[in-house]
């Protein structure tokens, strides 16, 4: 299972519920752990005390200024998750057309919608990039058509 996902220093997504304070603490610590690591070291970190005990690992990838961090338990394949992060980044790249950090910062909701197509409730849902992109595009289209109607005088309620 996947427990946590994080890109930025201060915001992340958890697939389990805890208080906002603890959530921030976890995210901060995770970021701290990951960001102090050198280049050219392995992409796994034994989170241990962080979330849910020793079964969990942090698996991350570092792209320029961004860290994509997943916290997963032993049911997930380490290399598989690394691939998944790659798929995620490539998907972002497709959906945002040459993604850059600011895209992600200003469109956190979209990032989440994309992530929701890949991981659902902490379980990996889809790993095929084309499938993800197709679904995201279709949803965007649906959204656009609604916006069009929505701008006409007819109101939602």
């Amino acid at each position: 299972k996947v427990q946590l996902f994080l890109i930025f220093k201060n915001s992340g997504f958890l697939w389990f519920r805890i208080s906002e304070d603890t959530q921030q603490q976890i995210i901060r610590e995770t970021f701290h752990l990951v960001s102090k690591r050198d280049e050219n070291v392995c992409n796994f970190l034994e989170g241990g005390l962080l979330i849910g005990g020793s079964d969990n690992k942090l698996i991350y990838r570092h792209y320029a200024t961004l860290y994509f961090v997943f916290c997963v338990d032993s049911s997930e394949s380490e290399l598989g998750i690394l691939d998944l992060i790659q798929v995620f980044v490539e998907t972002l790249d497709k959906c945002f057309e040459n993604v850059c950090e600011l895209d992600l910062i200003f469109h956190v909701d979209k990032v989440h919608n994309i992530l929701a197509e890949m991981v659902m409730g902490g379980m990996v849902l889809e790993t095929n990039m084309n499938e993800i992109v197709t679904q995201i595009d279709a949803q965007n289209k649906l959204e656009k058509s609604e916006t069009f109607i929505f701008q006409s005088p007819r109101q939602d309620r």
Partner: protein
Amino acid sequence: MALKMVKGSIDRMFDKNLQDLVRGIRNHKEDEAKYISQCIDEIKQELKQDNIAVKANAVCKLTYLQMLGYDISWAAFNIIEVMSASKFTFKRIGYLAASQSFHEGTDVIMLTTNQIRKDLSSPSQYDTGVALTGLSCFVTPDLARDLANDIMTLMSHTKPYIRKKAVLIMYKVFLKYPESLRPAFPRLKEKLEDPDPGVQSAAVNVICELARRNPKNYLSLAPLFFKLMTSSTNNWVLIKIIKLFGALTPLEPRLGKKLIEPLTNLIHSTSAMSLLYECVNTVIAVLISLSSGMPNHSASIQLCVQKLRILIEDSDQNLKYLGLLAMSKILKTHPKSVQSHKDLILQCLDDKDESIRLRALDLLYGMVSKKNLMEIVKKLMTHVDKAEGTTYRDELLTKIIDICSQSNYQHITNFEWYISILVELTRLEGTRHGHLIAAQMLDVAIRVKAIRKFAVSQMSTLLDNAHLVASSTQRNGICEVLYAATWICGEFSEHLQEPQHTLEAMLRPKVTTLPGHIQAVYVQNVVKLYASILQQKEQAAETEAAQAVTQLMVDRLPQFVQSADLEVQERASCILQLVKHVQKLQAKGVPVAEEVSALFAGELNPVAPKAQKKVPVPEGLDLDAWINEPLSDSESEDEKPKAMFHEEEQRQAKHRLPEVDEEELARRREARKQEQANNPFYIKSSPSPQKRYQDSPGVEHIPVVQIDLSVPLKVPGLPLSDQYVRLEEERRHRQRLEKDKRRKKRRDKEKKGKRRHGSLPTESDEDIAPAQQVDIVTEEMPENALPSDEDDKDPNDPYRALDIDLDKPLADSEKLPVQKHRNAENAKSPEKEDVPVVEKKSKKPKKKEKKHKEKERDKEKKKEKKKGEDLDFWLSTTPPPAAVPSTDTLSANTNTDATPKDEVEEPRREAQDGEDEDQDQEKKPSKHKKKHKKEKEEQPKDKKRSRKKLLGSEEAPGEPVQNGALEEEPLPPMSSYCLLAKNSYIKMTYSVQGSLQDSQVTVSIILENLSGSVLKSMELSVLDSLNTRMARPEGSSVHDGVPVPFQLPPGVSNEAQFVFTVQSIVMAQKLKGTLSFIAKDDAGATHEKLDFKLHFSCSSYLTTTPCYSDAFAKLLESGDLSMSSIRVDGISMSFQNLLTKICFHHHFSVVERVDSCASMYSRSIQGHHVCLLVKKGENSVSVDGKCSDSTLLSNVLEEMKATLAMC
């Protein structure tokens, strides 16, 4: 109204959207909190508006703020409003917010049930999708219960997009509402073969996740997963499946055997590292599960180790890390294969990456031997010095201790060296593990008697330098070692060289800055030391010196009396009074030493940590029973008795201390010693040194262990363990030379160094004798301790609720709660589940496209499903799934094509060795015979499982079976094994199985060694009759016995199989035989014999063969069967169990069952059809049989009568 709406629309133009919010926050770095609180106020305003678009925008911003750590639970109701918007855009925003902020405590969550249900059944797949995604994050037990049925329906949705999400979310539903697992499982299982790879992957994912927690419930899916594994090309799915197999193999070694080959192939063929890695991992798991049974997989181990070495040597740190991780798994069972890569692993200790260093450390644990322990620890010590950051250093410290102390200090040859290492470790500042070091010091000093003198000398040095250890902060964990040091110096004070000096060190004012619990130990041990000094002085008649020591005590103890710590204070006051009393007596010239030392007479023995738990509860003692009946709950009595009881307890505790005076203590101690002396289970020590010096005058009589040491014992600073390494090498070298010499003299002298129990040192290890003759005192266990080692499971584990038997047929009560109007759907299918109804609907469009294919698949699916039902049967057939013959659907008379081309002669001695057996079994064409055999092998092991299987085999014929509701009446475990013969050496039980070819029957004999000797050269000889003959190896005569292909160590049992050829099967047969064997024990070997009579019943010639009702009807119509019937009265057993019994003992299968009437079918090994009609009356059973041979029928019925009479 319209105006208001337009106004709302315009307002919206001026609202901030998410991007504005993000930008704003970025621009207000200094006063972020203030800015955000402004924004929240704005959002609150926006939420008050009627316009849903405005609300949605507000909620969207809130979601972002939540991610930054702001609590938005106050907006829960608004979130629900947005969730229920009709537009997807808003709905999605609402669900995202809900998934972030809702939890079980959110009270409005119950309002969402209907909204979610509506969204789940929405015509738009994205509405449904978004609802599923949201629900997956905030599903509560209530939601799970209410929506389980809706979600289950969605699992068969036409759109794969919905199907995969519905399948995946079921996992969450199961977790929250475990009752849904059984009803939903059949459909989930179906989804494993969904045509859409995404859905399939989701199903695999869910089942893997479930199986990870409760693997045994999912063993029966192994064949299906096996098929997926060999057919799937999706690496993600493959990885999951392979991981799952890794979890299943420990439960079923036969599965492991089956897996090795395809996994090895994958390892060789795949280019994906992730897949390769998981394959290696699972192969390792398989090897671990097999390691006990068959050591013949060295090729596989080599392959794994070799692949892992490649990973570790890779420049990619990730692979290096994973390589080490997997290596540590091999280490547990095959340490030798890993040990050869020691160089590589030591190298990894120098890696700059901490993750990798930690992994390498883990590996070291298993790689040490007597030979290399010192070297490895030396290397670790240098790392300790170099290590930056306390985490890694602490890790190193624990590892050093782990490595050294593992399996009862198995690898330590020189305990002086180890004590030095421990002392060196005390130099670590700021470590959290002071208590670990302390515990080791205590353990070693207590359990290794020979080392006490050395330990005491080291500890006294440590105490002398206590300021170094305790200098820094109060919190410094390392001061814990002083706890150990003081205790050791006090307890073993007779070994102290300068007790007076140590006493002074222990009474320094600085000590009062130590933590309370350590001070308490100081105080206590000061007295022990004092007692021992007193003794010495008095014996030497130095009255003045004795008085001086007493004075010192009287002077220094008050500093402890003032301690804020109650424990310290209490002990100190007590002792101070005692010492003052002693002082008075001394002034009068009364000798006191004897009595003071009597306070501490006797020796402390180590007690095993589990000892208390293992004390068996005496028979007849019910710990849960009330001693006094609980008082009634009336209010007046409620508080009073409690308070009384409490008071009493306190009073007692107070009184107890002063009451026990010295004499009493001594008396009790004496009594205890007496008792121990008479107790044969008590490990007696040689008379304790403490005791000895009491009767022998003079210090010089203190026993001194001779240690040949060239290191000065009194190192002013701290000792250097390195010197020991050098010394040890020299010593070993000397030893080797000596030994060589000795060896030349006496070749076969008993082996040396056998001082430790249980462990099997490697050859090279054995050569190294320990430096001191060390006896490790074993930990005490209560007499008649139970050997049970069960670890209680954590009762709070959420996955425990999911430990559910999935193979049991569904009961009527087990339905998911359904909304009323849906009930009609369920009524249709009387069988297991309501699966097919919705399924059909959803598959219609596809069927149009490719009708033909679909049909085929359906057919295949059916076969597969049935096959999957009997794991044992699958496990005993050939692995490649393509080649798995699918006879199940064939009716009884057409199963000849089930025999593969490469059919080979019947295996003779399958049990000869594991591999042979395996291969033979794979070649066997007749599965049903095998199935039953396996079933029976399983029988004694797992009652529950075998029962399940019986029910399964009953269902095997497929559709015509009408199970009806099953009575949930427990059936006693059944075994087809019956006693063959028994004497004081050996017990033989046997079972006979027919095979559908060559008129052969296989007799499986379980041989159990009851004696204390090893049984070998077992040989089974049978007097052949004209009709029945034993198959013997080629070239042997009829009088030769057939050797049993194994030996039996004491207490072990094993199974051997013998094949017999039978001419006529219509009558039961008996064969006389003899088992001859050699029983060998320490006293010598004797030749023994055991006679037996093998009974071949007619039922044993029958084989369970499924038959369809139409084929069955035809058979009966054909009219060339003779008929016979029996009737048995006085039967109370349920019909279901009755049928199960018949199926089990007489190898029938149920063709059809209607109420209390069932038709059954079986086939003999020579092709006779046997048809039964079983009817149950009030308490009688009548069986009408039809068979192509009347004699066979009447004999079978007679046997059945005997079985039924016992019901």
